[in-house]
């Protein structure tokens, strides 16, 4: 009897989670991929912001918990979606469909679906890291660009060759300094040797990328101080995983996608001149994943008139400015959207 009561309580508890009640939840599907979409926030505003997650392979499923997103949801509708073979996306798409063209076509289907479902006044694209790369690639087509009112690129990788060169350089300097100080010498000597043996990131395999990523994680990347924002969300916990749409695909999808989707030689610079809509570039001062030099690069190649282009290097922030400095982030994004909606 006690067991039955406990089970009923657990079921009731699970059905009460905001993950199951808030906003509109549906799926878009093409090329055998079934991608979850969560529209959350102020849909009455008529302003919809599509959040492109990073990776490739990460998720937007719990990003709503961050302070910056909750603030934006009060004024606008946020559209969280997981890309193919990323996050908790479903279906059974062939690995042959893990191409930039397919990711762009998925995003275009999402934009058209939002237009069909809500008839919004304006749609903004907001891309973080790889999501910024995807957003840039999407907007290089003039027909697709007409559907969007403005683009926010945060720590993006629109020129992966330059990104890897800058990022690897910072990590190499860190590794050499650590070796010179005699600090974790074996690990950092391996890093020095790795970069010496693999100078051209366009020829890296998935295993090479994973090795680089391990050095990146250990190279003292900037992380936000929880003391400054004591109520800030610290990342997914038990309730996010067990009381939400999240499945274990969150852990397995990237492992399938990344070895079959190499973006390390992707350079969108030649086509960025076709992008003329308003753009906000947000970069963290201490971003060693996508260093701030990428913001300068975007500024140089975008076709957006200077009056519609704003570049902000946010102090005391790393790769995710919306987590590291939410107040600055919110202020910049809201100013940009109000000016261009």
């Amino acid at each position, binding site marked *: 009897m006690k067991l039955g009561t406990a089970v009923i309580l657990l079921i009731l508890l*699970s059905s009460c989670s905001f993950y199951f009640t808030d906003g509109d939840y549906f799926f*878009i599907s093409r090329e055998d991929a079934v991608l979850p979409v969560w529209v959350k926030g102020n849909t009455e505003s008529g302003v919809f912001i599509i959040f492109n997650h990073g990776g490739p392979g990460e998720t937007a499923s719990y990003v709503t918990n961050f302070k910056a997103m909750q603030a934006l949801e009060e004024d606008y509708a946020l559209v969280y979606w997981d890309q193919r*073979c990323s996050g908790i996306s479903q279906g*059974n798409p062939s690995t042959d469909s893990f191409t930039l063209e397919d990711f762009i076509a998925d995003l275009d289907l999402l934009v058209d679906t939002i237009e069909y479902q809500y008839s919004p006044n304006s749609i903004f694209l907001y891309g973080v890291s790889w999501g910024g790369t995807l957003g840039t690639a999407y907007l290089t087509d003039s027909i697709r660009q007409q559907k969007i009112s403005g683009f926010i690129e945060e720590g993006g990788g629109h020129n992966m060759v330059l990104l890897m060169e800058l990022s690897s350089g910072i990590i190499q300097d860190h590794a050499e300094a650590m070796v010179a100080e005699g600090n974790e010498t074996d690990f950092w000597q391996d890093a020095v040797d790795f970069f010496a043996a693999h100078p051209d990131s366009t020829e890296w395999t998935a295993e090479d990328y994973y090795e680089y990523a391990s050095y990146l994680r250990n190279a003292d990347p900037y992380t936000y101080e929880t003391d400054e924002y004591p109520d800030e969300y610290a990342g997914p916990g038990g309730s996010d995983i067990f009381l939400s749409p999240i499945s274990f695909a969150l852990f397995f999808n990237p492992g399938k996608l990344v070895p079959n989707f190499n973006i390390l030689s992707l350079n969108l610079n030649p086509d960025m001149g076709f992008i003329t809509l308003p753009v906000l570039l947000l970069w963290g001062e201490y971003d060693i994943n996508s260093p701030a030099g990428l913001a300068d690069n975007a500024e140089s190649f975008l076709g957006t008139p200077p009056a519609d282009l704003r570049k902000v290097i946010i102090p005391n922030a790393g790769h995710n400015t919306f987590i590291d400095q939410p107040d600055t982030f919110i202020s910049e994004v809201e100013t940009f959207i109000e000016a261009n909606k």
Partner: protein
Amino acid sequence: MKRICSLILFLLLFCFASGWADENIPESRLSLTASYFGEMVLHPGFKAGIEYRIMEGKKASLSVPLAAGWYRHIRNHQMLSVESGLVGRLSSKGPFFSDLLLGAGYGLKKPDGSIYFEDEEGSILTESASWTSRFLVTAALGAGFDFGKNARVKLSPFLRLGFFGEYPYNTYMLLHPFLESGIRVRLPKAHKR
């Protein structure tokens, strides 16, 4: 992987090696099962089925289960399933038992929500999600309480924790943890007239 397979084989062999001496089974070899089935523990569903004991001794038994079930992972998917396999069960001196379930089956799955797609002319259409076939494999460890062969109520509450694999999922097999909690009812042996 080899170690896991070896462990499973060892547990099954241990079940057998524990000795089937007593073939004097007072009740039928057939049991009915009914359970709460929680994918990722909390996403609710149910299972119902039968178990047929193919071997039984004083401390161990081996059964073939057949169960059908359904669960809903809200805003993710729903799954219908039919599964069979083997259950090796070890009894302690007291009323407690532990078991190992290895199974395989067929699933029908659909996303839990409407689906939007584009037709050939580029128009957006929407439809309810349709069921698609899945191959399922299951491995679980369980424990339970047996009221005994002479008890008036031949019920055995049980609890299982395990994983089932769903294939294909983005061209690989996705693992789902689950908790199953229910009862097994041993049916009385039919009397010959």
